[in-house]
């Protein structure tokens, strides 16, 4: 991995990104705004499941409002994140914190997709009046914890490489 990281680092593209004073900060800012939208969307969905907000909205209404924020946010995060990796590959590819972040990201994406499919199939178990609260709670808590963990490890990358 470190040879691979070194190879990326030596490419002219990587060098060009690093040499620009503005590019990395601007891309990081875009990356942060996108993750802010995702975290907020995840928190609002979780708050609805927990009955802490949007009680007048059905689960489908809330999901319809906020799931696109998560998917759109990811569409922005992927290319901006890739540019940041290309610019400083050692900082990420050789950094265990980065791989923790990627593992949590994979899990977060998987459970969000599962939530969306489950809701599309049958919204009833997701509503408050649905009998079993446990699956709802597990999804709600793990979704928020994973996204917060992704933000935390994202910031920690700067401290651990």
């Amino acid at each position, binding site marked *: 991995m470190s040879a691979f990281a070194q190879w990326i680092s030596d490419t002219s593209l990587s060098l060009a990104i690093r040499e620009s004073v503005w590019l990395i900060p601007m891309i990081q800012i875009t990356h942060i705004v996108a993750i*802010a939208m995702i*975290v907020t969307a995840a928190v609002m969905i979780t*708050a609805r499941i927990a009955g802490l907000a949007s009680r007048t909205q059905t689960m489908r209404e809330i999901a319809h409002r906020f799931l696109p924020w998560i998917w759109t946010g990811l569409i922005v995060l992927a290319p901006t994140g890739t540019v940041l990796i290309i610019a400083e590959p050692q900082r990420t590819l050789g950094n265990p914190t980065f791989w923790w972040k990627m593992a949590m990201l994979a899990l977060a994406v998987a459970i969000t997709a599962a939530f969306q499919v489950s809701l599309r199939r049958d919204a009833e178990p997701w509503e408050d009046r649905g009998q079993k609260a446990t699956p709802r709670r597990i999804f709600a808590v793990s979704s928020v914890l994973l996204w917060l963990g992704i933000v935390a490890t994202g910031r920690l990358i700067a401290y651990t490489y």
Partner: protein
Amino acid sequence: METVTELLSWLESTPLALAIAQSTIAFPAIEILHVIAITLVFGTIAIVDLRLLGLGSNNRAVTELCRDVLPWTWGAYAIAAISGSLLFISQATQYVANPAFRMKMLLMLAAGINMVVFELITFRGVAKWDRDVPVAPAGKLAGAVSLACWVGVVGFARWVGFTVGVPE
């Protein structure tokens, strides 16, 4: 200016500030809390701003949406303010001297003034554009100004990290 400099030095010399500056984990730990809080401040304000602009949640009344979302904004804002103050005192002199930090504070002030004007003046007429019709121009303007200010706050906040002596 003399007294400001003295005040900043005094802040840095308080036991709490020294503890944060000297600990290896305190700064990153508080910083992570600060970043999480600001993502929620920004995101929840954006929900309301986008509604004012007619770009999202248009099926919901403005008043209802504000009641639902703004308590989260204020809760997150309190966490951001406390954690931000802790980060600030650890390097007060450097932050105040930093142009990006000053811009961030200026934009937060602008966002605050925009919010007060919206709450005290524009919001009085909310009954006329609460639902089903486009928000009054003053309300749309408040949403646009707020969104621009907060994107700027996030941007300059990130820029502070590149220009003050902390890891990128």
